[in-house]
Protein backbone atom coordinates (compact mmCIF):
# COMPACT_ATOMS: atom_id res chain seq x y z
CA UNK A 1 0.00 0.00 0.00
CA UNK A 2 2.81 2.39 0.91
CA UNK A 3 4.57 1.70 -2.39
CA UNK A 4 1.43 2.57 -4.35
CA UNK A 5 1.24 5.92 -2.53
CA UNK A 6 4.81 6.63 -3.62
CA UNK A 7 3.94 5.80 -7.22
CA UNK A 8 0.97 8.16 -7.04
CA UNK A 9 3.12 11.05 -5.86
CA UNK A 10 5.58 10.31 -8.66
CA UNK A 11 2.73 10.45 -11.17
CA UNK A 12 1.59 13.86 -9.99
CA UNK A 13 5.14 15.22 -9.91
CA UNK A 14 5.69 13.97 -13.46
CA UNK A 15 2.44 15.50 -14.71
CA UNK A 16 3.19 18.82 -13.02
CA UNK A 17 6.63 18.94 -14.65
CA UNK A 18 5.09 18.18 -18.06
CA UNK A 19 2.45 20.88 -17.58
CA UNK A 20 5.14 23.34 -16.56
CA UNK A 21 7.15 22.58 -19.72
CA UNK A 22 3.97 22.91 -21.76
CA UNK A 23 2.97 26.26 -20.31
CA UNK A 24 6.34 27.90 -19.72
CA UNK A 25 6.92 29.02 -23.35
CA UNK A 26 3.53 30.79 -23.23
CA UNK A 27 4.48 32.52 -20.00
CA UNK A 28 7.83 33.50 -21.53
CA UNK A 29 6.05 34.86 -24.59
CA UNK A 30 3.53 36.97 -22.66
CA UNK A 31 6.11 38.24 -20.18
CA UNK A 32 8.42 39.01 -23.09
CA UNK A 33 5.76 41.23 -24.66
CA UNK A 34 5.97 43.48 -21.58
CA UNK A 35 9.76 43.70 -21.42
CA UNK A 36 12.44 45.43 -23.43
CA UNK A 37 14.66 43.44 -25.76
CA UNK A 38 17.63 43.85 -23.41
CA UNK A 39 15.67 42.53 -20.43
CA UNK A 40 14.44 39.50 -22.39
CA UNK A 41 17.97 38.64 -23.44
CA UNK A 42 19.12 38.95 -19.85
CA UNK A 43 16.50 36.37 -19.02
CA UNK A 44 14.03 38.51 -17.06
CA UNK A 45 11.05 36.30 -16.19
CA UNK A 46 8.69 38.81 -14.57
CA UNK A 47 6.21 41.20 -16.08
CA UNK A 48 7.84 44.49 -17.04
CA UNK A 49 6.64 47.96 -17.87
CA UNK A 50 7.64 48.06 -21.51
CA UNK A 51 4.35 46.90 -23.03
CA UNK A 52 3.27 50.34 -24.28
CA UNK A 53 6.71 51.09 -25.66
CA UNK A 54 6.68 47.72 -27.47
CA UNK A 55 3.21 48.35 -28.86
CA UNK A 56 4.24 51.80 -30.08
CA UNK A 57 7.42 50.49 -31.64
CA UNK A 58 5.70 47.51 -33.28
CA UNK A 59 2.97 49.67 -34.83
CA UNK A 60 5.63 52.09 -36.08
CA UNK A 61 7.83 49.41 -37.68
CA UNK A 62 5.12 47.27 -39.33
CA UNK A 63 1.51 47.52 -40.43
CA UNK A 64 0.17 45.48 -37.54
CA UNK A 65 -3.49 46.35 -38.07
CA UNK A 66 -3.35 45.49 -41.74
CA UNK A 67 -1.66 42.12 -41.15
CA UNK A 68 -4.14 41.25 -38.40
CA UNK A 69 -7.07 42.16 -40.64
CA UNK A 70 -5.60 40.15 -43.54
CA UNK A 71 -5.20 37.10 -41.31
CA UNK A 72 -8.67 37.49 -39.83
CA UNK A 73 -10.33 37.99 -43.22
CA UNK A 74 -8.48 35.13 -44.94
CA UNK A 75 -9.07 32.70 -42.08
CA UNK A 76 -12.75 33.62 -41.73
CA UNK A 77 -13.51 33.37 -45.45
CA UNK A 78 -11.52 30.14 -45.62
CA UNK A 79 -13.51 28.66 -42.71
CA UNK A 80 -16.92 29.64 -44.11
CA UNK A 81 -16.08 28.40 -47.62
CA UNK A 82 -14.57 25.12 -46.38
CA UNK A 83 -17.49 24.38 -44.08
CA UNK A 84 -19.96 25.04 -46.88
CA UNK A 85 -18.23 22.92 -49.53
CA UNK A 86 -17.15 20.05 -47.24
CA UNK A 87 -20.37 19.73 -45.24
CA UNK A 88 -22.38 19.51 -48.46
CA UNK A 89 -20.05 16.78 -49.68
CA UNK A 90 -19.91 14.89 -46.38
CA UNK A 91 -23.72 14.93 -46.19
CA UNK A 92 -23.98 13.88 -49.83
CA UNK A 93 -21.59 10.95 -49.43
CA UNK A 94 -23.49 9.64 -46.39
CA UNK A 95 -27.17 10.35 -47.09
CA UNK A 96 -27.10 9.44 -50.79
CA UNK A 97 -24.74 6.56 -50.23
CA UNK A 98 -24.17 4.23 -53.17
CA UNK A 99 -21.28 2.31 -54.66
CA UNK A 100 -20.14 5.05 -57.05
CA UNK A 101 -19.97 7.66 -54.31
CA UNK A 102 -18.10 5.34 -51.96
CA UNK A 103 -15.48 4.77 -54.65
CA UNK A 104 -15.18 8.51 -55.22
CA UNK A 105 -14.78 9.09 -51.47
CA UNK A 106 -11.89 6.60 -51.28
CA UNK A 107 -10.29 8.34 -54.23
CA UNK A 108 -10.62 11.72 -52.51
CA UNK A 109 -9.07 10.28 -49.33
CA UNK A 110 -5.93 9.55 -51.36
CA UNK A 111 -5.41 13.31 -51.61
CA UNK A 112 -4.46 13.27 -47.93
CA UNK A 113 -1.32 11.41 -48.91
CA UNK A 114 -0.21 14.07 -51.40
CA UNK A 115 2.42 16.25 -49.69
CA UNK A 116 1.84 19.97 -50.03
CA UNK A 117 5.50 20.32 -51.02
CA UNK A 118 4.75 18.28 -54.14
CA UNK A 119 1.94 20.45 -55.41
CA UNK A 120 3.13 23.88 -54.27
CA UNK A 121 5.27 24.68 -57.33
CA UNK A 122 2.57 23.82 -59.92
CA UNK A 123 -0.03 25.59 -57.75
CA UNK A 124 2.13 28.68 -57.61
CA UNK A 125 2.58 28.68 -61.40
CA UNK A 126 -1.15 28.11 -61.92
CA UNK A 127 -2.12 30.89 -59.49
CA UNK A 128 0.30 33.39 -60.93
CA UNK A 129 -1.09 32.75 -64.43
CA UNK A 130 -4.61 33.22 -63.08
CA UNK A 131 -3.50 36.43 -61.28
CA UNK A 132 -4.50 35.04 -57.90
CA UNK A 133 -1.30 36.08 -56.10
CA UNK A 134 -1.91 38.47 -53.18
CA UNK A 135 -5.63 37.67 -53.07
CA UNK A 136 -7.90 36.07 -50.47
CA UNK A 137 -9.15 33.70 -53.16
CA UNK A 138 -5.55 32.62 -53.76
CA UNK A 139 -5.06 32.10 -50.04
CA UNK A 140 -8.12 29.90 -49.52
CA UNK A 141 -8.44 27.89 -52.74
CA UNK A 142 -5.88 25.13 -51.99
CA UNK A 143 -7.43 24.40 -48.58
CA UNK A 144 -11.09 25.03 -49.39
CA UNK A 145 -11.91 21.36 -49.90
CA UNK A 146 -10.06 18.81 -47.82
CA UNK A 147 -10.64 15.08 -47.62
CA UNK A 148 -10.23 15.39 -43.85
CA UNK A 149 -13.23 17.72 -43.44
CA UNK A 150 -15.38 15.86 -45.97
CA UNK A 151 -14.73 12.60 -44.15
CA UNK A 152 -15.39 14.27 -40.79
CA UNK A 153 -18.81 15.46 -42.00
CA UNK A 154 -19.55 12.10 -43.56
CA UNK A 155 -18.81 10.20 -40.35
CA UNK A 156 -20.75 12.72 -38.26
CA UNK A 157 -23.73 12.38 -40.61
CA UNK A 158 -23.96 8.70 -39.67
CA UNK A 159 -25.70 9.78 -36.47
CA UNK A 160 -28.14 11.95 -38.43
CA UNK A 161 -31.48 10.05 -38.53
CA UNK A 162 -32.41 9.13 -42.09
CA UNK A 163 -36.07 9.04 -40.98
CA UNK A 164 -35.90 12.82 -40.53
CA UNK A 165 -34.85 13.17 -44.14
CA UNK A 166 -37.67 10.90 -45.30
CA UNK A 167 -40.24 12.73 -43.20
CA UNK A 168 -39.08 16.06 -44.59
CA UNK A 169 -39.42 14.72 -48.13
CA UNK A 170 -43.01 13.68 -47.41
CA UNK A 171 -43.60 17.22 -46.16
CA UNK A 172 -42.46 18.42 -49.57
CA UNK A 173 -39.09 19.88 -48.65
CA UNK A 174 -36.49 19.69 -51.45
CA UNK A 175 -33.15 17.92 -51.01
CA UNK A 176 -31.21 21.16 -50.49
CA UNK A 177 -34.00 22.50 -48.27
CA UNK A 178 -33.55 19.47 -46.01
CA UNK A 179 -29.82 20.13 -45.83
CA UNK A 180 -30.05 23.83 -45.00
CA UNK A 181 -33.19 23.91 -42.84
CA UNK A 182 -32.87 20.64 -40.93
CA UNK A 183 -29.34 19.19 -41.16
CA UNK A 184 -27.36 22.38 -40.55
CA UNK A 185 -29.22 23.43 -37.36
CA UNK A 186 -29.21 19.91 -35.88
CA UNK A 187 -25.50 19.42 -36.63
CA UNK A 188 -24.44 22.81 -35.24
CA UNK A 189 -21.94 21.23 -32.78
CA UNK A 190 -20.22 19.37 -35.64
CA UNK A 191 -20.01 22.60 -37.61
CA UNK A 192 -18.55 24.38 -34.57
CA UNK A 193 -15.83 21.74 -34.13
CA UNK A 194 -14.98 21.85 -37.83
CA UNK A 195 -14.95 25.65 -37.80
CA UNK A 196 -12.49 25.82 -34.91
CA UNK A 197 -9.85 23.54 -36.42
CA UNK A 198 -10.26 25.02 -39.90
CA UNK A 199 -9.95 28.57 -38.58
CA UNK A 200 -6.87 27.68 -36.54
CA UNK A 201 -5.04 26.03 -39.40
CA UNK A 202 -5.91 28.86 -41.80
CA UNK A 203 -4.85 31.45 -39.22
CA UNK A 204 -1.55 29.66 -38.63
CA UNK A 205 -0.86 28.77 -42.28
CA UNK A 206 2.65 29.81 -43.25
CA UNK A 207 4.18 28.12 -46.30
CA UNK A 208 1.42 28.85 -48.81
CA UNK A 209 1.00 32.54 -47.86
CA UNK A 210 4.78 32.86 -47.87
CA UNK A 211 4.70 31.81 -51.52
CA UNK A 212 1.72 33.76 -52.81
CA UNK A 213 1.42 36.79 -50.54
CA UNK A 214 4.30 38.65 -52.08
CA UNK A 215 3.31 42.26 -51.54
CA UNK A 216 3.45 43.96 -48.15
CA UNK A 217 -0.24 44.84 -48.47
CA UNK A 218 -1.34 41.22 -48.30
CA UNK A 219 0.98 40.15 -45.46
CA UNK A 220 -0.56 37.90 -42.79
CA UNK A 221 0.44 37.65 -39.11
CA UNK A 222 2.85 34.66 -39.41
CA UNK A 223 4.60 36.48 -42.28
CA UNK A 224 4.78 39.66 -40.22
CA UNK A 225 6.45 37.75 -37.36
CA UNK A 226 9.11 36.22 -39.56
CA UNK A 227 9.73 39.61 -41.15
CA UNK A 228 10.74 40.98 -37.73
CA UNK A 229 13.73 38.64 -37.50
CA UNK A 230 14.98 39.38 -41.01
CA UNK A 231 17.18 42.36 -39.99
CA UNK A 232 20.64 42.30 -38.42
CA UNK A 233 19.43 42.65 -34.86
CA UNK A 234 16.16 41.29 -33.60
CA UNK A 235 14.12 43.30 -31.10
CA UNK A 236 12.86 40.49 -28.89
CA UNK A 237 10.34 42.76 -27.15
CA UNK A 238 8.35 43.50 -30.28
CA UNK A 239 8.94 39.96 -31.57
CA UNK A 240 7.35 38.46 -28.44
CA UNK A 241 4.55 41.03 -28.62
CA UNK A 242 3.70 40.07 -32.19
CA UNK A 243 3.93 36.35 -31.33
CA UNK A 244 1.55 36.98 -28.41
CA UNK A 245 -0.91 38.90 -30.63
CA UNK A 246 -0.85 36.08 -33.18
CA UNK A 247 -1.34 33.39 -30.56
CA UNK A 248 -4.06 35.09 -28.47
CA UNK A 249 -7.03 34.46 -30.85
CA UNK A 250 -6.26 30.75 -31.17
CA UNK A 251 -5.56 30.45 -27.43
CA UNK A 252 -8.88 32.08 -26.56
CA UNK A 253 -10.63 29.70 -28.96
CA UNK A 254 -8.82 26.79 -27.35
CA UNK A 255 -9.63 27.78 -23.76
CA UNK A 256 -13.29 28.55 -24.40
CA UNK A 257 -14.00 25.72 -26.86
CA UNK A 258 -11.68 22.96 -25.71
CA UNK A 259 -14.24 20.19 -26.12
CA UNK A 260 -15.11 21.23 -29.67
CA UNK A 261 -11.43 21.70 -30.47
CA UNK A 262 -10.66 18.13 -29.39
CA UNK A 263 -13.59 16.82 -31.47
CA UNK A 264 -12.30 18.75 -34.47
CA UNK A 265 -8.74 17.51 -34.08
CA UNK A 266 -9.94 13.94 -33.79
CA UNK A 267 -12.11 14.45 -36.88
CA UNK A 268 -13.54 11.15 -37.92
CA UNK A 269 -11.30 8.98 -35.72
CA UNK A 270 -13.77 7.28 -33.45
Amino acid at each position, binding site marked *: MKRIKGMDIL*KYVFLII*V*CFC*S*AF*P*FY*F*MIVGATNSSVDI*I*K*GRLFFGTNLWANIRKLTQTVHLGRAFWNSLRNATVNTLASLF*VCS*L*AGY*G*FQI*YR*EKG*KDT*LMSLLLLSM*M*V*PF*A*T*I*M*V*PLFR*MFSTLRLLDTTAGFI*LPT*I*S*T*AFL*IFFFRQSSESFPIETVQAARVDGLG*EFGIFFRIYVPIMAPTFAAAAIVTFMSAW*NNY*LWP*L*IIMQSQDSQTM*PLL*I*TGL*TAGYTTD*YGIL*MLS*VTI*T*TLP*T*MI*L*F*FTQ*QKRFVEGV*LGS*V*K
Partner: protein
Amino acid sequence: MAQRTLTKRINRVGWLFVIPATVFIFVLNFYPMVSAFLLSLQSGRGNNLKYAGLRNYARLFQDEMFLTSVGNVITYLVIQVPIMLMAALVLATLLNDPKLKGKSIFRTFIFLPCATSLVSSAMIFKSFFSIDGLANNALMALGILKSPLSWLTHPVWAKFVIILTITWRWTGYNTVFYLAGLQMIDRSIYESARIDGASSSRQFFMITIPLLKPVILLTTIMSTNGTLQLFDEVRNITNGGPGIATLSISQYIYNLSFIYNPQFGYAAAVSYAILVMVAILSFIQIKAGGKR
Protein backbone atom coordinates in the same frame (compact mmCIF):
# COMPACT_ATOMS: atom_id res chain seq x y z
CA MET B 1 -40.25 -0.61 -58.19
CA ALA B 2 -41.50 2.97 -57.84
CA GLN B 3 -39.55 3.18 -54.59
CA ARG B 4 -36.37 2.10 -56.34
CA THR B 5 -36.64 4.65 -59.18
CA LEU B 6 -37.34 7.31 -56.58
CA THR B 7 -34.18 6.32 -54.69
CA LYS B 8 -32.26 6.36 -57.94
CA ARG B 9 -33.49 9.83 -58.78
CA ILE B 10 -32.68 11.13 -55.29
CA ASN B 11 -29.22 9.56 -55.41
CA ARG B 12 -28.64 11.40 -58.65
CA VAL B 13 -29.50 14.67 -56.88
CA GLY B 14 -26.96 13.57 -54.27
CA TRP B 15 -24.18 14.00 -56.80
CA LEU B 16 -24.85 17.73 -56.77
CA PHE B 17 -23.82 17.75 -53.11
CA VAL B 18 -20.48 16.08 -53.67
CA ILE B 19 -19.47 17.64 -57.00
CA PRO B 20 -18.14 21.04 -55.78
CA ALA B 21 -15.79 19.50 -53.20
CA THR B 22 -14.70 16.85 -55.70
CA VAL B 23 -13.91 19.42 -58.38
CA PHE B 24 -11.82 21.46 -55.94
CA ILE B 25 -9.77 18.41 -54.92
CA PHE B 26 -9.24 17.31 -58.51
CA VAL B 27 -8.25 20.76 -59.77
CA LEU B 28 -6.20 21.87 -56.77
CA ASN B 29 -4.67 18.58 -55.65
CA PHE B 30 -4.66 15.79 -58.22
CA TYR B 31 -4.08 18.00 -61.26
CA PRO B 32 -1.05 19.80 -59.71
CA MET B 33 0.28 16.39 -58.66
CA VAL B 34 0.24 15.25 -62.27
CA SER B 35 1.62 18.55 -63.54
CA ALA B 36 4.43 18.37 -60.94
CA PHE B 37 5.43 15.09 -62.53
CA LEU B 38 5.37 16.57 -66.04
CA LEU B 39 7.32 19.55 -64.73
CA SER B 40 9.91 17.20 -63.23
CA LEU B 41 10.69 15.95 -66.72
CA GLN B 42 11.76 19.44 -67.82
CA SER B 43 14.79 21.47 -66.97
CA GLY B 44 15.90 25.07 -67.30
CA ARG B 45 15.78 28.36 -65.42
CA GLY B 46 12.63 30.36 -64.69
CA ASN B 47 9.86 29.70 -67.18
CA ASN B 48 12.31 28.79 -69.91
CA LEU B 49 11.84 24.99 -69.69
CA LYS B 50 12.80 22.18 -72.05
CA TYR B 51 12.00 18.46 -71.99
CA ALA B 52 14.84 16.64 -70.24
CA GLY B 53 13.55 13.12 -69.70
CA LEU B 54 14.67 11.60 -66.44
CA ARG B 55 17.79 13.76 -66.15
CA ASN B 56 16.43 15.63 -63.12
CA TYR B 57 15.97 12.34 -61.31
CA ALA B 58 19.50 11.25 -62.15
CA ARG B 59 20.74 14.58 -60.82
CA LEU B 60 19.10 13.89 -57.43
CA PHE B 61 21.60 11.16 -56.63
CA GLN B 62 24.59 13.44 -57.19
CA ASP B 63 23.11 16.47 -55.48
CA GLU B 64 24.79 16.81 -52.12
CA MET B 65 22.24 19.37 -50.90
CA PHE B 66 19.38 17.02 -51.69
CA LEU B 67 21.07 14.02 -50.09
CA THR B 68 21.92 16.04 -46.97
CA SER B 69 18.34 17.30 -46.68
CA VAL B 70 17.04 13.72 -46.94
CA GLY B 71 19.53 12.63 -44.27
CA ASN B 72 18.47 15.52 -42.01
CA VAL B 73 14.79 14.74 -42.33
CA ILE B 74 15.40 11.05 -41.64
CA THR B 75 17.39 12.03 -38.54
CA TYR B 76 14.48 14.15 -37.30
CA LEU B 77 12.08 11.34 -38.09
CA VAL B 78 13.99 8.52 -36.43
CA ILE B 79 14.74 10.45 -33.23
CA GLN B 80 11.73 12.68 -32.80
CA VAL B 81 8.72 10.58 -33.78
CA PRO B 82 9.33 7.59 -31.43
CA ILE B 83 10.14 9.85 -28.45
CA MET B 84 7.09 12.01 -29.02
CA LEU B 85 4.69 9.12 -29.55
CA MET B 86 5.97 7.25 -26.47
CA ALA B 87 5.61 10.42 -24.36
CA ALA B 88 2.11 10.99 -25.71
CA LEU B 89 1.13 7.41 -24.94
CA VAL B 90 2.43 7.63 -21.37
CA LEU B 91 0.66 10.97 -20.81
CA ALA B 92 -2.60 9.64 -22.21
CA THR B 93 -2.37 6.58 -19.95
CA LEU B 94 -1.84 8.79 -16.90
CA LEU B 95 -4.69 11.12 -17.89
CA ASN B 96 -7.03 8.18 -18.44
CA ASP B 97 -6.70 7.05 -14.79
CA PRO B 98 -10.19 7.54 -13.30
CA LYS B 99 -8.71 8.25 -9.87
CA LEU B 100 -6.50 11.09 -11.14
CA LYS B 101 -7.37 14.41 -9.51
CA GLY B 102 -7.22 17.71 -11.41
CA LYS B 103 -7.53 15.78 -14.67
CA SER B 104 -9.09 18.60 -16.69
CA ILE B 105 -6.37 21.07 -15.66
CA PHE B 106 -3.60 18.65 -16.61
CA ARG B 107 -5.35 17.92 -19.89
CA THR B 108 -5.75 21.60 -20.75
CA PHE B 109 -2.08 22.30 -20.16
CA ILE B 110 -0.93 19.27 -22.13
CA PHE B 111 -3.15 20.08 -25.13
CA LEU B 112 -2.34 23.81 -25.03
CA PRO B 113 0.74 23.85 -27.34
CA CYS B 114 -1.29 22.62 -30.31
CA ALA B 115 -3.21 25.91 -30.27
CA THR B 116 -0.10 27.86 -31.31
CA SER B 117 1.21 28.33 -34.80
CA LEU B 118 4.41 26.60 -35.83
CA VAL B 119 5.92 30.01 -36.56
CA SER B 120 5.16 31.26 -33.04
CA SER B 121 6.59 28.17 -31.37
CA ALA B 122 9.67 28.40 -33.60
CA MET B 123 10.22 32.03 -32.58
CA ILE B 124 9.83 31.30 -28.86
CA PHE B 125 12.33 28.43 -28.98
CA LYS B 126 14.67 30.42 -31.16
CA SER B 127 14.88 33.13 -28.52
CA PHE B 128 15.34 30.52 -25.74
CA PHE B 129 18.36 29.15 -27.53
CA SER B 130 19.90 32.33 -28.87
CA ILE B 131 23.52 32.82 -27.80
CA ASP B 132 22.58 35.16 -24.93
CA GLY B 133 19.18 33.51 -24.40
CA LEU B 134 17.49 31.88 -21.47
CA ALA B 135 18.82 28.35 -22.05
CA ASN B 136 22.45 29.45 -21.84
CA ASN B 137 21.80 31.70 -18.85
CA ALA B 138 19.99 28.96 -16.96
CA LEU B 139 22.57 26.27 -17.74
CA MET B 140 25.42 28.58 -16.75
CA ALA B 141 23.69 29.55 -13.50
CA LEU B 142 23.33 25.85 -12.72
CA GLY B 143 27.00 25.31 -13.50
CA ILE B 144 26.28 22.84 -16.32
CA LEU B 145 27.83 25.14 -18.92
CA LYS B 146 30.95 27.21 -18.33
CA SER B 147 30.57 29.48 -21.34
CA PRO B 148 27.51 30.14 -23.56
CA LEU B 149 26.87 27.47 -26.17
CA SER B 150 26.07 28.67 -29.68
CA TRP B 151 23.16 26.25 -30.10
CA LEU B 152 21.88 27.41 -33.45
CA THR B 153 25.22 27.48 -35.27
CA HIS B 154 26.27 24.01 -34.10
CA PRO B 155 25.23 21.27 -36.56
CA VAL B 156 24.15 18.81 -33.84
CA TRP B 157 22.67 21.19 -31.26
CA ALA B 158 20.74 23.07 -33.96
CA LYS B 159 19.04 19.78 -34.83
CA PHE B 160 18.39 19.23 -31.13
CA VAL B 161 16.60 22.59 -30.85
CA ILE B 162 14.45 21.80 -33.89
CA ILE B 163 13.55 18.38 -32.50
CA LEU B 164 12.71 19.92 -29.12
CA THR B 165 10.45 22.52 -30.74
CA ILE B 166 8.56 19.93 -32.77
CA THR B 167 8.18 17.68 -29.73
CA TRP B 168 6.83 20.55 -27.62
CA ARG B 169 4.33 21.53 -30.29
CA TRP B 170 3.01 18.07 -31.22
CA THR B 171 3.14 15.79 -28.15
CA GLY B 172 -0.17 17.14 -26.81
CA TYR B 173 -1.73 16.78 -30.25
CA ASN B 174 -0.93 13.07 -30.30
CA THR B 175 -2.07 12.71 -26.69
CA VAL B 176 -5.54 13.84 -27.87
CA PHE B 177 -5.70 10.81 -30.17
CA TYR B 178 -4.39 8.30 -27.61
CA LEU B 179 -6.71 9.56 -24.88
CA ALA B 180 -9.68 9.20 -27.21
CA GLY B 181 -8.49 5.69 -28.06
CA LEU B 182 -8.05 4.74 -24.41
CA GLN B 183 -11.50 5.99 -23.49
CA MET B 184 -12.94 3.44 -25.90
CA ILE B 185 -11.29 0.53 -24.09
CA ASP B 186 -13.62 -1.19 -21.68
CA ARG B 187 -12.34 -0.66 -18.13
CA SER B 188 -13.44 -4.11 -17.05
CA ILE B 189 -10.56 -5.59 -19.06
CA TYR B 190 -8.13 -3.81 -16.74
CA GLU B 191 -10.18 -4.86 -13.70
CA SER B 192 -9.91 -8.53 -14.54
CA ALA B 193 -6.21 -8.18 -15.40
CA ARG B 194 -5.63 -6.64 -11.98
CA ILE B 195 -7.52 -9.48 -10.30
CA ASP B 196 -5.32 -11.92 -12.22
CA GLY B 197 -2.33 -10.08 -10.71
CA ALA B 198 -0.99 -8.27 -13.79
CA SER B 199 1.22 -5.30 -12.90
CA SER B 200 0.56 -1.84 -14.38
CA SER B 201 3.46 -2.13 -16.80
CA ARG B 202 2.26 -5.57 -17.88
CA GLN B 203 -1.25 -4.17 -18.40
CA PHE B 204 0.26 -1.34 -20.48
CA PHE B 205 2.14 -3.68 -22.81
CA MET B 206 -0.36 -6.55 -22.94
CA ILE B 207 -3.64 -4.59 -23.07
CA THR B 208 -3.16 -0.93 -23.86
CA ILE B 209 -0.69 -1.15 -26.73
CA PRO B 210 -2.39 -3.98 -28.65
CA LEU B 211 -5.83 -2.38 -28.34
CA LEU B 212 -4.51 1.02 -29.40
CA LYS B 213 -2.74 -0.39 -32.44
CA PRO B 214 -4.99 1.35 -35.02
CA VAL B 215 -4.55 4.72 -33.31
CA ILE B 216 -0.80 4.19 -32.98
CA LEU B 217 -0.67 3.40 -36.69
CA LEU B 218 -2.63 6.54 -37.53
CA THR B 219 -0.44 8.83 -35.42
CA THR B 220 2.72 7.22 -36.78
CA ILE B 221 1.64 7.85 -40.36
CA MET B 222 0.58 11.43 -39.58
CA SER B 223 3.84 12.23 -37.78
CA THR B 224 5.95 10.61 -40.48
CA ASN B 225 4.23 12.60 -43.21
CA GLY B 226 4.48 15.79 -41.18
CA THR B 227 8.20 15.32 -40.54
CA LEU B 228 8.97 14.49 -44.16
CA GLN B 229 7.32 17.82 -45.07
CA LEU B 230 8.95 19.79 -42.25
CA PHE B 231 9.30 23.45 -43.19
CA ASP B 232 8.08 26.17 -40.80
CA GLU B 233 10.35 25.30 -37.86
CA VAL B 234 13.53 24.82 -39.86
CA ARG B 235 13.06 27.97 -41.87
CA ASN B 236 12.38 30.08 -38.81
CA ILE B 237 14.79 28.61 -36.27
CA THR B 238 17.95 27.99 -38.32
CA ASN B 239 16.99 28.75 -41.93
CA GLY B 240 18.64 25.42 -42.73
CA GLY B 241 21.98 26.37 -41.18
CA PRO B 242 24.69 26.20 -40.09
CA GLY B 243 25.52 25.65 -43.78
CA ILE B 244 22.92 23.08 -44.74
CA ALA B 245 23.16 21.04 -41.52
CA THR B 246 19.47 21.36 -40.67
CA LEU B 247 17.99 21.91 -44.16
CA SER B 248 14.75 20.00 -44.76
CA ILE B 249 13.54 18.69 -48.11
CA SER B 250 10.58 21.09 -48.23
CA GLN B 251 12.86 24.02 -47.56
CA TYR B 252 15.18 22.86 -50.32
CA ILE B 253 12.22 22.78 -52.73
CA TYR B 254 11.22 26.25 -51.56
CA ASN B 255 14.78 27.54 -52.06
CA LEU B 256 15.06 25.97 -55.51
CA SER B 257 11.79 27.56 -56.59
CA PHE B 258 11.73 30.92 -54.86
CA ILE B 259 15.13 31.85 -53.44
CA TYR B 260 17.71 30.74 -55.98
CA ASN B 261 17.38 31.41 -59.68
CA PRO B 262 14.17 29.35 -60.08
CA GLN B 263 14.61 25.76 -61.28
CA PHE B 264 10.99 24.61 -61.22
CA GLY B 265 11.67 21.38 -63.09
CA TYR B 266 14.31 20.18 -60.69
CA ALA B 267 12.29 21.38 -57.68
CA ALA B 268 9.40 19.24 -58.94
CA ALA B 269 11.72 16.22 -59.15
CA VAL B 270 12.79 16.80 -55.53
CA SER B 271 9.14 17.12 -54.54
CA TYR B 272 8.41 13.77 -56.14
CA ALA B 273 11.09 12.28 -53.91
CA ILE B 274 8.97 13.37 -50.90
CA LEU B 275 5.87 11.91 -52.49
CA VAL B 276 7.60 8.58 -53.05
CA MET B 277 9.01 8.55 -49.49
CA VAL B 278 5.58 9.32 -48.01
CA ALA B 279 4.04 6.55 -50.10
CA ILE B 280 6.71 3.96 -49.26
CA LEU B 281 6.84 4.70 -45.53
CA SER B 282 3.04 4.74 -45.21
CA PHE B 283 2.87 1.44 -47.06
CA ILE B 284 5.50 -0.15 -44.79
CA GLN B 285 3.76 1.17 -41.67
CA ILE B 286 0.36 -0.09 -42.78
CA LYS B 287 1.87 -3.50 -43.59
CA ALA B 288 3.72 -3.67 -40.27
CA GLY B 289 0.81 -2.33 -38.22
CA GLY B 290 -1.95 -4.14 -40.02
CA LYS B 291 -0.85 -7.61 -38.91
CA ARG B 292 -3.10 -8.85 -36.18
